[in-house]
């Protein structure tokens, strides 16, 4: 088979996280085949690291830590109060005592003795990293490592795509990292309906979008506690996860659907040391009776009522179009060719939302291989490309700090919609990317070990324009060459 290094380089940038040393050559004989091979690899997309906590365990760990910390603070406060009372009591008993210290000091000074130096207030110790933050960085490390070490990274890109589509927020839950491993990764090459069920039924999502505390107005708990429905998750499932905004659903659909999923909550962490933080269908919170969603009536079958609606939503024609459009936009261009969207939509419908088939269809589509690199990489995708081309490691703290500075903090999207995926949202950050590229190039003892010409072949190869080649090879220093390479349009775009 003829070698296709240009197709290989394009595949790596467009479908993966950019080339690493040798990857262009490694897949040049069959770039499409290499992409499919990643999809077909055993355990594709899974992270097996026994050291990582399950979402429930992470939740319980956080609860225990916070509980102990609170107890410590309370104890401390109590001690202080006791000491204060004691001091006040002593002062009241013996008023003379208060002056004795100053007199003693004066005597020392008069005696020509050196006054002891004022004890310096101890420098405030840096706040130790909480176990929750340590857990976050362990998860982040696994997340970045998977992207950096993959040969192409197509499956990882799918993981990132779906993780952003079904985003949660690490600010509201300690489970964000585990959520990606438990709810997203197992299903990125499975049925879309299973992905919806896993993501929208996951404790991290139930907490993030407030369903854990939602109660049916006519449920036992709802009546007794005079509390009711929280529509947040129901609405976002319709608007963001499945049908898409303005896809024809009404407020009644939102309300009914929200009622359907009442009772989808978690075991309380304060009373359940074994299962606290894990999924719980709680009939006492569940709105009794049948509900109608999108014109279809659903009997009250408890947890199965919600599952039935979710499966139908996942199979809805509007969902097929929504998902097809987002995928094409993500991988190819902000304004993808309509034929590509249509082909993906059709595949979605015909395969009952089989994401493995859809991913394969994307690779097979000629429209997905247009030579123009139109799509601007998101900051974290670009950082991964930098890491792979420059050959630096997977230090999660540094990478996370860099993506945060560029406006894309890991697992902390600005809204349930996730991070935006269009050029307009990110392009103004180009100047900041230049700072980052410069900082990478200035890393101690780094640039001098690198041959920029080799890095050019590693990172872009046949995609490098004559102008970029010129800029890199004529740079005044290796650092400048590296910065220009990482900033080149064909490295910023895919």
């Amino acid at each position, binding site marked *: 088979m003829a070698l296709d290094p240009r197709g290989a380089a394009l595949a790596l940038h467009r479908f993966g996280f950019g080339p690493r040393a040798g990857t262009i050559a490694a897949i040049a004989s069959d770039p499409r085949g290499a992409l499919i091979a990643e999809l077909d690899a055993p355990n594709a997309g899974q992270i097996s690291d026994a050291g990582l906590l399950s979402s429930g365990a992470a939740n319980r760990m956080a609860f225990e830590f916070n509980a102990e910390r609170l107890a410590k603070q309370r104890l401390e406060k109590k001690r202080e109060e006791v000491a204060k009372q004691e001091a006040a009591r002593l002062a009241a008993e013996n008023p003379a005592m208060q002056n004795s210290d100053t007199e003693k000091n004066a005597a020392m000074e008069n005696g020509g003795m050196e006054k002891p130096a004022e004890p310096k207030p101890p420098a405030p110790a840096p706040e130790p990293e909480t176990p929750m933050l340590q857990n976050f960085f362990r998860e982040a490390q696994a997340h970045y490592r998977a992207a950096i070490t993959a040969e192409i990274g197509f499956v990882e890109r799918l993981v990132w795509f779906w993780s952003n589509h079904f985003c949660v927020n690490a600010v509201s839950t300690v489970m964000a990292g585990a959520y990606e491993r438990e709810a997203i990764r197992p299903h990125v090459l499975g049925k879309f309906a299973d992905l919806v069920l896993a993501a929208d039924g996951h404790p991290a999502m139930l907490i993030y979008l407030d369903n854990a505390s939602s109660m049916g107005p006519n449920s036992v708990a709802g009546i007794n506690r005079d509390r009711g429905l929280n529509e947040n998750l129901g609405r976002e499932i319709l608007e963001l996860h499945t049908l898409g905004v303005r896809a024809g659903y009404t407020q009644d659909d939102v309300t009914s659907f929200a009622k359907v999923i009442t009772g989808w909550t978690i075991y309380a962490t304060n009373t359940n040391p074994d299962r606290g933080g894990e999924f719980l269908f709680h009939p006492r919170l569940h709105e009794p009776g049948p509900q109608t969603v999108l014109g279809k009536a659903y009997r009250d079958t408890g947890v199965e009522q919600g599952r039935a609606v979710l499966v139908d939503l996942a199979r809805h024609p509007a969902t097929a179009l929504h998902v097809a459009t987002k995928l094409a936009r993500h991988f190819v261009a902000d304004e993808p060719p309509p034929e590509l969207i249509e082909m993906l939509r059709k595949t979605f419908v015909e395969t009952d939302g089989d994401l493995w088939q859809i991913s394969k269809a994307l690779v097979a589509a000629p429209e997905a291989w247009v030579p123009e690199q139109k799509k601007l990489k998101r900051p974290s995708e670009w950082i991964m490309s930098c890491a792979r081309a420059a050959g630096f490691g997977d230090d999660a703290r540094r990478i996370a700090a860099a993506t945060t500075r560029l406006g894309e903090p890991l697992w902390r999207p600005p809204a349930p919609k996730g991070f935006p995926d269009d050029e307009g949202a990110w*392009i103004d950050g180009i100047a900041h990317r230049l700072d980052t590229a410069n*900082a990478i190039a200035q890393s101690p003892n780094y640039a001098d070990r690198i041959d920029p010409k080799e890095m050019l072949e590693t990172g872009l190869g046949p995609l490098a324009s004559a102008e970029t080649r010129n*800029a890199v090879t004529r740079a005044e220093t290796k650092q400048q060459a590296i910065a220009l390479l990482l900033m080149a349009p064909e490295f910023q775009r895919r």
Partner: protein
Amino acid sequence: MPAMLHESTRRELLLGSGALFAWAFAPRIARAEGRDPRFLTIVLRGALDGLAAVAPVGDPDWVKLRGDNALKLDGATPALLLGDFFALNPAMPNVHRLYQAGQAIIVHAVATPYRERSHFDGQDVLESGLAWPGRVDTGWLNRTLTKLEPDDRVRTSANGRRTFAVGPITPLVVRGPAPVLSWVPPRLPPVSDDTTMRLLDLYRHTDPTLARVLEDRIGLAALVPSTPSDRKSGETGPVVQIGNINQVRAYFAEAAGAAAKFLANPDGPRVGALALDGWDTHINEGVVNGRLSQLLGALDAALGAIETNMGAAWSETVVTLITEFGRTARINGNEGTDHGTATVALLLGGALKGGRVVADWPGLKESDLYEKRDLKATIDLRAVLKGLLKDHLHVEDRVLAADIFPGSEDVKPIEGLVA
């Protein structure tokens, strides 16, 4: 993310200034004579235009060659005369003063053995001391240190012998088997104007959208204060720096001044290096009032800071300023110069027998030029460096030819540069 990579095998970062010198080093022979020499190398990356720094005003072809861009002895900003043939760029009064005080030597029409025109390869040759570029990971200054006779004091010192480097990146010239001690200024060099303009040029030719955004940012940056103190942390405005010569001046002075302080310390290192970027002047070179003039001014101020901070040790100091190659003899179509061959080397310090220009002037007629375009090299830079290492650090001829500049048996050290 100014340090994503933390492989510090032979490198120690000094991030504060306390208790740095629990160790000592000095060449044994020099010490036996009661001397305590200091040797600092400054690598000017990007290829300094030697003819713009030190002009051959006495050459009848000079003004013809450079036209309006030629330094002259008359006019609003006259060049500073050095002897009767050469004149110094007027942006460098400190160098001129040192020259007059017998503490500066200009070596002209000098080049490394490298005859191609790639910066990276040229810098490899300049700093490795080898005649050819390649995968080299040791520099001539570091190897020099390992070849000096170890004295007992060095042997017993817990920290051993070290070279010293300033800046976020250890220059190749001081890398190698001898441990490198390096100090990173708190203020890192900003994204340079030059890098930004090169990127903008690339975008203009390839990606109009990115070009427009970068242009906007540059325009904005010109409106906001660019000193770090004026910028609240968290208020992360555009950090594209245009017209940031003040920042460049500050970095040059800080880096060079710090290097001098470390070397001046009685228990400090004795040899060190730093690199200063920005000399690749393809466009609008600005010999008298523009960019190069500003850079030379910043360099001159940094050299002044070295002299000051060396204090009494200045009398035992040699500072060498070297660059990978020179630039074209003629001005190009963009009022700049392209990559060339021979250039200048500046030597400064109280230990020198200075106040002279060392040159075997090749002439500037077309037939005199290397490949009809560059100033021809008549002095091998290795001869200069070998002379300095021999006289100042007392490195033996044999070692210089075999280990420091391998294969340079035929390049005789220029002796007598050091007093």
